[in-house]
């Protein structure tokens, strides 16, 4: 009954014929041997940073080593980009890794997972912004982290290098095991860097939480890899896609073990990219230094999930419900995170929720079959979110750790803060999707418009959710900017003031110097440039494994084609949000407070601001439903182990011989004579036996013979 209901209601998005996607066939090549350096240079940088740590270097040397090597890595990526011809993906062998072969049924079966690079346009797109932004943010960090020179400076840059090594492995790897290596590697780098301020309990807790929540996702990814190996006998993309190209796998014939793959990969992607239900680690991850938040937790690492789904797009099509679920999770996460972001006061946390929300858009894009929109949004988001985080970092750096948007105001009127203010302004415009001049406008439109076009379960509703979220996004983005950068000049230093280098004197915010400003300007220019790179991304995605023709709109009239009306509607949503923010947070700042109080005063609406400010109590919910029961179970098992298994079973059995001994103990009475009697008695018994032996043997024989 229920099954047939689902079948009629859910339009089959991906029919069995279209599941056979023609993925470009990869070829091994010896031509780009040097490209492996893209991977090895960050690793070398880690080693050199390690050497610096051993030699106790007390200068900025590790920072410059990292920037230099990452920069070289970026240049090599550029070189690879220009020498790559858009035909077929190429595979560049780097190092033998896991490579096991055995004889099966007369032929040799091999499990191959080598270090090899799978270069196609999707890889290049990701690698360009990963290494490019990586270099720039490392450069930014050379100044940002200078307070820690000689203390944590080396550790920080070693972490950044490890991260870039792992991220490169993730993106460049030609097989799923190498992807998994990168996947867990970036998770570890993120653990390392979130816990950078390891004396702070909250930072340690956040690092731990990030790693463990990610591990839940990794569990899914690992199982997905096992299923792929089980069904396709390979973990290499090339062989996998060849098998899919060859056909034989469709949504109708695939068994459950094939259909499970998309869902497991999805779990991995949702863990790494902070989507429902595994998003909870990302806001806490803001405990790390700001460059880390910008690089890992906004621009690059968190897009790994999007990369995974894009890379595995043909596999995701193996189950017809997989992509709609991705879309719904993405859309709901976007909305949920935006509502939470609207009610936070910590600038970095607001941006963290905005990252979750924007990642939701990317998954929505993947789900509604515009892998181009998703990839483009990844690309544009990387730039503007990096700008936003880096400006937030500059504020934090300058105001002794102050991140409360109520406590800093009028930044743009202060001397030396102009570049920060205006780059942040541009970043907020991009985030809000301000029409025409921002990159976020184009990429977001693409996704939301496609949601209205692609037929699927409730995709129109998802489009509406996308629009509402766009309004919210514009509101909270400009809430930050109007509060912090506009308005009257006013500031309070943060907690780091007392133990910082400022001593006990009057607090003076120190404006960012050359390097930070330079990096901000360069990334902003990158953001502007990315407006014009849409076509390039479109072409690139079309040549990669993420290729899938998005459905076109049926009509051509203005209202029939969402791609035509979307710019207007989305602009309206964006500008509306900005105006709302302007009214509540610049023109009439007390209005926001009054509205909140009004909501709180009314018993019916009180829950809304409270729940939003408390992040919808999701952390508490997980604590109560997952962590606490497991913790209690752990204690129970501990007691069970100690008392039941060890004390009762093991010691109990060990006591049996002793109990047996107790029954014979009276024989040992210590009276010499009784021993003598038993000896003599025994002797007599033996003597009798010896004498009667022949008869005895006869008797035994008869008994045994009778039995046998």
């Amino acid at each position, binding site marked *: 009954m229920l099954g047939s209901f689902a079948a009629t209601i859910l339009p089959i998005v991906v029919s069995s014929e279209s599941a056979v996607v023609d993925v470009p066939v990869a070829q091994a090549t010896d031509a780009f041997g040097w490209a492996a350096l893209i991977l090895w240079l960050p690793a070398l940088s880690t080693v050199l940073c390690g050497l610096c740590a051993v030699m106790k270097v007390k200068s900025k040397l590790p920072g410059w080593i990292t920037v230099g090597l990452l920069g070289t890595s970026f240049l090599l990526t550029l070189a690879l980009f220009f020498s790559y011809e858009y035909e077929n993906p190429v595979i560049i062998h780097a190092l033998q890794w*896991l490579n096991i072969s055995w004889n099966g049924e007369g032929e040799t079966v091999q499990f191959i997972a080598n270090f090899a690079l799978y270069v196609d346009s999707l890889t290049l797109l990701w690698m360009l912004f990963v290494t490019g932004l990586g270099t720039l943010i490392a450069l930014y960090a050379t100044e940002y982290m200078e307070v820690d020179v000689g203390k944590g400076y080396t550790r920080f840059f070693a972490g950044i290098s490890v991260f870039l090594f792992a991220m490169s492995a993730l993106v460049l790897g030609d097989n799923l095991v190498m992807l998994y290596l990168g996947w867990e590697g970036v998770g570890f780098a993120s653990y390392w860097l979130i816990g950078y301020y*390891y004396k702070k309990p909250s930072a340690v807790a956040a690092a731990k939480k990030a*790693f463990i929540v990610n591990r839940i996702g990794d569990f899914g990814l690992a*199982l997905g890899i096992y299923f792929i*190996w089980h069904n396709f006998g390979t973990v290499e993309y090339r062989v996998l896609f060849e098998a899919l190209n060859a056909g034989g796998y469709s949504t109708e014939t695939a068994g459950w073990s094939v259909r499970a793959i998309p869902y497991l990969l999805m779990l991995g992607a949702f863990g790494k990219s902070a989507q429902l239900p595994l998003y909870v680690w990302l806001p806490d991850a803001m405990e790390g230094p700001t460059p880390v938040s910008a690089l890992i937790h906004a621009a690059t690492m968190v897009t790994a999930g999007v990369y995974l789904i894009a890379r595995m797009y043909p596999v995701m099509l193996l189950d017809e419900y997989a992509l709609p679920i991705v879309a719904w999770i993405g859309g709901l996460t976007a909305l949920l995170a935006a509502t939470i972001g609207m009610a936070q006061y910590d600038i970095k946390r607001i941006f963290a929720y905005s990252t979750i929300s924007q990642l939701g858009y990317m998954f929505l894009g993947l789900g509604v079959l515009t892998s181009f929109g998703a990839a483009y949004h990844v690309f544009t988001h990387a730039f503007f979110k990096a700008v936003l985080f880096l400006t937030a970092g500059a504020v934090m750096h300058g105001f002794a750790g102050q991140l409360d948007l109520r406590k800093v105001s009028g930044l743009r009127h202060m001397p030396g803060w102009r570049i920060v203010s205006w780059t942040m302004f541009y970043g907020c415009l991009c985030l809000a999707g301000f029409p025409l001049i921002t990159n976020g406008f184009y990429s977001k439109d693409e996704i939301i418009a496609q949601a209205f076009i692609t037929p699927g379960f409730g995709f129109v509703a998802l489009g509406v959710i996308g629009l509402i979220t766009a309004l919210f996004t514009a509101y909270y983005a400009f809430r930050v900017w109007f509060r912090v950068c506009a308005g009257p000049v006013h500031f309070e230093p943060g907690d780091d003031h007392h133990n910082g280098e400022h001593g006990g004197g009057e607090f003076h915010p120190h404006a960012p110097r050359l390097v930070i400003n330079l990096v901000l300007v360069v990334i902003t220019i990158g953001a502007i440039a990315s407006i014009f790179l849409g076509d390039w991304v479109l072409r690139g995605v079309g040549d990669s494994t993420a290729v899938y023709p998005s459905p076109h709109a049926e009509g051509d009239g203005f209202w029939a084609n969402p791609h035509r009306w979307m710019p207007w509607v989305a602009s309206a949503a964006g500008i509306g949000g900005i105006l709302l923010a302007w009214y509540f947070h610049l023109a009439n700042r007390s209005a926001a407070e009054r509205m909140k109080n009004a909501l709180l005063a009314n018993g019916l609406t009180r829950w809304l601001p409270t729940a939003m400010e408390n992040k919808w109590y999701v952390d508490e919910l997980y604590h109560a439903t997952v962590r606490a029961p497991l913790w209690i179970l*752990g204690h129970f098992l501990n007691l069970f182990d100690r008392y039941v298994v*060890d004390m009762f079973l*093991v010691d109990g059995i060990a006591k049996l011989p002793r109990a047996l001994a107790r029954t014979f103990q009276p024989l040992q009475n210590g009276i010499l004579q009784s021993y003598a009697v038993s000896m003599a008695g025994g002797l007599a018994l033996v003597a009798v036996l010896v004498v009667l032996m022949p008869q005895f043997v006869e008797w035994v024989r008869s008994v045994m013979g009778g039995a046998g």
Partner: protein
Amino acid sequence: MSLVPLMILPLLGAIGVAVFPGRRAKWIALGVSTATFLYSVVLAMAFDHWHDGGFAFASDPPVGWLDEFGITLNMGADSVSMFLVLLTTLLMPLCIWGSFTAIRERIKEYFAWMLGIEAAMIGVFIARDLIFFYVCFEFTLIPMYFLIAIWGSTNRAKACIKFFLFTFTGSMVALAGFLYIAWQHAALPGGEWTFDIARLTTFAATGLSATEQAWVLLALMTGFAVKVPLFPVHTWLPLAHTEAPTAGSVILAAVLLKLGTYGLFRFVLPMVPEAVVEYAPVIAVISIIGILYAGLICWVQEDIKRLIAYSSVSHLGFCVLGLFALNPLGVQGSVLYMINHGLSTGALFFLVGMIYERYHTREMSKLGGLAKRMPVWAFFMVFFVLASVGLPGLNGFISEFLCLIGAFTASADNAAYPGVLGPWYAAAAALGMIIAAMYLLIMTGKVVFGPLKEPAATNNSHGAKLPADLTFREIGVLVPLAVLCLYIGFQPKPLTDALEGPITQVLAVYPETVRQHLAENAPAIDELDRVILTMTETDSDRNKGADDG
């Protein structure tokens, strides 16, 4: 080349240590164990069976011992033995070097026992005679008993007795199994008494009936499962680990537990294939219970050493699971697991020992934020925790991944190596990955990071004034292990290539045995299906009738 010096050197060393004055004991022990290590490296270079799984350095002619029963002192090593011997000989100098300051009393005895246990452990790995194997297997208990009983901590009396009796009882049962095989072999027409492993293995695999195999499996499993240890016969381990001196814990975790899994690999798999196929699911379920059960227990431990001890129970569950996947991936993973667990968990015990030497406590609640006081220690701690968690790029990942993927693909529809496990087993075991991350990182978070917390009175009763952070000697102990962890993480190929031969041989009978087993059991399952089907049909018919009515 001969394997004999591998055992003779440490034994002579033990006597030497006992004879010479106490001051030199530690240096003699270190020298002897290093010499043994170097000799084993030379042997490894001369070893010419890295690729075909054959046995090298066989005793030629055979060395008799009790000729009337065919008991010999024959030795021989294939690549699995070589790796485990190398692991042992590498760890022993480190253990000895690592206990230079920790052991302050009865020094001569201590180092003599250390060398004695080395000889016994090596003997286990190179024996080609069952009785010789068994004698060495049991002889490891005696030095360990004294190591715990004399140099252990407060609760050592109970720990050493439990350790000894528990493992001894188990291996007695295993001995019974061995003797049964030998007896059956001798009882053959024209048969003779022999304890030659190769001959008995061939005999047992082909000459024993299914019932006999099942009983032999039970006997051998009893012995080896206690040693591994598997749930629920693991309780001696946390106790012994917690009470043993640092080097004792290291040896216990790194090598002694491997005697169990080595026994499973060397005897159980090749000797009783039919029974293994029959009962592999049961053993796998026990392993999985162990993985999850011990993992959750780890979570709530207060004592760091106890936590790591339970983590061994959890980790070796993966090892056994991989073994009973009965395909090359799983068994490769399992054998690698033996080596990798030895490296990373051994190092973790060293690290906890270093803390104990400084603060005289292992309570997590009394320690915190040690990264500030001991950055070098903190680095190594995090490194080995990650190796233990199975971070890719370090050694633990390779073996864990292979074990799990092996178990996963060990289903009936695997063409080359059908198995009796399958996705569900691997999925359940993989939950252990999450739990491992949880308990190890929570421990790290408490002890290594956070605000600094040290026990107030850290009076050093031994008078050995150690600096706050690690000394050169302590770093020297850890570095070789760390280097190997990284090397195996990135270059497992030399190892996997070398292990291919023995594993192929061990698994040679399995595809056919499993297929037979499946063929025999398939009708039964169909029958069950049919019964269930008819039952549900009648149910639905009845419901339909009710609806109509």
